[in-house]
């Protein structure tokens, strides 16, 4: 009877058996006594760059809060006002009862920010990629994407019915070969990212978009990690490389530079608005709360005038990148290309030890590991903020030096 069932014998047909390898890897790691890298709690958030994490005053260097908008007084005021005026939630889909004045104002802010005709706000950035990609590329169409694309792009591909063709990361020639081999007359969507979040490297968008257009493809660029920071007006890598007009769709998120949550797609396609009726991840979910669209719209409008902050963020990125190289760490890029700096760890074990040593120093970074990372690497991913002071960046470097020596990663 059931009394005889022992805990180490999985019941027949246990659907969780497929996770046994992951459970084992995790248990092995935690058995070394290391603090759980995926169970951190921030008990109190003091500013865009500081929080009390697991009881310690901690500098935040892994939150993608690039422009430090999360405590901006104007942004907070807009949110409080919207909470008072419109309530805590919309309780409905955008296409039914879930479009309030604030949602339109947020989309207007995006149109102005990007100088584009159409903007569509989703409840998360993940859903923006999921919805747009799965909807516009259908059966018989081809999606050509960079092999290092974000999970939301792959999931958008998996949800749709198009043929999926990956190419080697940032390899213009590999993209060109695949474009050339697509059967005559098939629709093509090329999916690229401005900044790749794992290594913090930038794509050669200018060459890639030109070749894609030459082969009659439509181009979607995910600028999640460049919005607000890269380009003269913070529109992203496409702006910096001068090819905004050739991008058919730009996807972005509010959960990084904007400092809230939500996702969007902007486009100049004359028929773009039909997406509101046919895109299931847009239709079959509740819209963002009024406070979130109000804080987002205010933040987006302030980011248009954020050139001083952008300049300071570049300074921070350059200082940290050079400092880490000088200390002897191996980094994901030879030059700083974005606000992300990836520190390459020898393996998961040492990566977790280094992560914990930094946390005990009072520094939070992301521990990134396969399958999220390229080439099976373990990374300590640092994302800088425009609100990190120059002194804080020096403090961060001192912490890396002490932790790196203690763990034995640097000499």
């Amino acid at each position, binding site marked *: 009877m059931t009394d005889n069932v022992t805990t180490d014998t999985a019941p027949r047909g246990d659907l969780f058996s497929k996770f046994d390898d992951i459970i084992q890897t995790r248990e092995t790691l935690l058995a070394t006594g290391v603090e759980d890298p995926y169970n951190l709690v921030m008990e109190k958030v003091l500013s865009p760059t500081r929080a009390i994490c697991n009881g310690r005053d901690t500098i935040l260097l892994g939150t993608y809060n690039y422009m430090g908008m999360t405590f901006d007084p104007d942004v907070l005021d807009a949110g409080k006002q919207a909470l008072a005026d419109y309530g805590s939630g919309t309780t409905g889909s955008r296409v039914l009862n879930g479009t309030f004045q604030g949602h339109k104002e947020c989309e207007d802010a995006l149109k102005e920010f990007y100088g584009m005709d159409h903007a569509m706000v989703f409840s998360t950035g993940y859903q923006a990629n999921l919805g747009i990609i799965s909807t516009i590329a259908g059966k018989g169409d*081809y999606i050509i994407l960079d*092999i290092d694309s974000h999970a939301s792009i792959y999931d958008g*591909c998996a949800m749709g019915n198009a*043929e*999926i*063709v*990956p*190419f*080697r990361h940032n390899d213009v020639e*590999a993209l060109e*070969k*695949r474009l050339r*081999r*697509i059967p005559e007359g098939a629709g093509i969507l090329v999916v690229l990212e401005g900044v790749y979040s794992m290594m913090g490297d930038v794509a050669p968008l200018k060459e890639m978009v030109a070749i894609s257009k030459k082969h009659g493809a439509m181009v979607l660029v995910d600028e999640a990690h460049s919005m607000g920071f890269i380009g003269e007006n913070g529109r992203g890598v496409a702006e910096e490389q001068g090819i905004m007009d050739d991008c058919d769709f730009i996807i972005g998120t509010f959960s990084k530079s904007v400092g809230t949550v939500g996702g969007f797609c902007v486009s100049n396609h004359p028929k773009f608005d039909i997406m509101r009726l046919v895109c299931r991840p847009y239709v079959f979910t509740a819209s963002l709360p009024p406070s979130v669209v109000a804080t987002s719209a205010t933040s987006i409008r302030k980011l248009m005038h954020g050139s001083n902050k952008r300049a300071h963020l570049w300074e921070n990125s350059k200082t940290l990148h050079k400092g880490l190289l000088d200390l002897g760490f191996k980094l994901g890029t030879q030059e700083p290309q974005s606000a992300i700096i990836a520190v390459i760890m020898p393996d998961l074990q040492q990566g977790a030890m280094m992560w914990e040593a930094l946390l005990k120093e009072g520094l939070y970074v992301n521990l990134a590991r396969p*399958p999220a990372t*390229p*080439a*099976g690497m373990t990374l300590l991913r640092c994302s800088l903020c425009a609100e990190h002071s120059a002194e804080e960046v020096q403090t961060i470097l001192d912490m890396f030096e002490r932790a790196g020596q203690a763990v034995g990663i640097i000499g």
Partner: protein
Amino acid sequence: MTEAEVDTRIRALIEPFNKKGVEITPATTFANDLEFDSLTVMDFVAEIEDEFDIIISMNQQAEIENYGLLVAAVHKLQDS
């Protein structure tokens, strides 16, 4: 190109990826017998695509579990 010719050319391409020198038969699987991870799969597929000037989409790759299925699929693709 005949299926035998396709087989010969893929056998040559697979060699540098066959680190353990596993004997290649039609039943040899990529995930289990050859222990290909996702990056190896991408590199190997790219070699085949370049050699035969074809596209093997991820949707098609999902159906190709063993060497025999690969040869048949490439033979069909380069013919069309």
